[in-house]
């Protein structure tokens, strides 16, 4: 079933179409959830998070643009997995990978949105395979060993290229007027 048809049927209340979406994307959703919550959470938690993501798809299918289902599932999985960690009062993944950013003027949602746009631009400016490595690590939360295995690289090389991506991001923000320092790299 193609994605457009699948979404239209889900919006129309067809649970078989939702079942088809689960068949197609359960492994993907579970993998992202697992990257974020395991450890410390358990495989059962991963399945609960995955089920929650598909329930959200059922309820909010009208929010999903055709052609963007995979991206929507990934974003919702990130949110659900992080929320599960927060509710369990457990540390979030990559919490140590932070930037201390300061700038003139008040901090607000617009600043955060701009920072995300700048981060995207910075990442898009990276050459391959650095761009892919950065996205796999910081969006999908894949471990460096897994990224290395998927790309046929040495884990040390992956870590070096990640560091290069962080440097590029920091430089990109500094060029645009933000004062930016690495924290706990």
């Amino acid at each position, binding site marked *: 079933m193609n994605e457009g048809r699948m979404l239209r049927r889900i919006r129309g209340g067809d649970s078989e179409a939702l079942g088809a979406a*689960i068949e197609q994307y359960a492994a*993907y959703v579970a993998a992202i959830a697992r990257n974020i919550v395991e450890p410390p959470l358990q495989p059962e938690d991963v*399945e609960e998070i995955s*089920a929650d993501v*598909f329930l959200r798809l059922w309820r909010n299918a009208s*929010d999903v643009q055709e052609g963007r289902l995979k*991206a929507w599932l990934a974003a919702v999985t990130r949110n659900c997995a992080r929320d599960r960690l927060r509710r369990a009062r457990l540390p979030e993944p990559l919490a140590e990978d932070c930037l201390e950013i300061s700038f003139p003027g*008040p901090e607000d949602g617009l600043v955060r949105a701009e920072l995300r746009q700048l981060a995207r631009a910075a990442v898009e400016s990276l050459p391959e395979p650095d761009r892919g490595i950065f996205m796999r690590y910081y*969006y999908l*939360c894949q471990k460096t060993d897994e990224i290395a295995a998927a790309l046929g690289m040495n884990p040390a090389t992956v870590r070096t290229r990640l560091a290069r991506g962080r440097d590029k991001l920091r430089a990109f923000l500094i060029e645009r007027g933000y004062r930016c320092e690495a924290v706990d790299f």
Partner: protein
Amino acid sequence: MKLSIFDLAGDCFPEDVMLGTKDAAMTARIKESVMKSIELEKRPRRRSGSRGLRIVALVAAIAAALTATAYAAGLFRMHMDRPEQGTVVSGTWTERNEDGTVDHVQTMSYPDAGFVFTFEAETTPHVVKFKPGWLPEHSGGPVFGEPDAEGWYQYLSDNGEGKDIPYVIQTMYMNEGKTLVLNGECQVIKEGTFGDYQMKEIRCSYYPEYLNDGNYLLLIDETEGYCLIVSGTNSMEDMEHIARELEVLVTDEPVDYNPDYNVGQINIGRG
């Protein structure tokens, strides 16, 4: 501010990466769990008995929901939509003189609406009152809301201090024609049932120098046409605790739609 790169990378979706290995057993378990939840959601709601004073204690309702057999479709429908980016939700407040002539029409605009609520109604909702059985420790800030002679509230809040409004308990009525907004950057974080209610948990972010994130627990009754809103900057666990211990009364007093005030907001906030 300290920002996680994980957060900064929130728009960096790697389209061409497919993760995960097919696991038929896990997929089947996920599918079974989802389908079970969907079936539960499809069950029509229990109809109330005769109109008159009806008291529903949520704790009791949770148990009752397990054994209830009589269900009927709701008389009201609540729509919760996210406005398209750039949309400014607006309406009017019309002030009238004593003789009914229009004194002033004020356009009310909500450019930062996170969710918009509209309603379909086959009849008129009725005033809902509540008695709290548990509340968070008082913040020391002002408390708003007066009980009636029998101790029932229609509104109750601990308005807190600074960036905190620990809790606000209020009711949204499903009058057709009315638009209500929940402002801020809002996300639904959980949906399902809560006792005999449909439930949505929503988290909204505001300007951090203005107010801490708000947690909203919506308890929706589309048979009676109301939505109890337990909200505040305290944790969602606190909101759930308040809601679990609420005693709710649906009175016989109708809540008529007033087209002079066709828009409003339900969020916590400081004026």
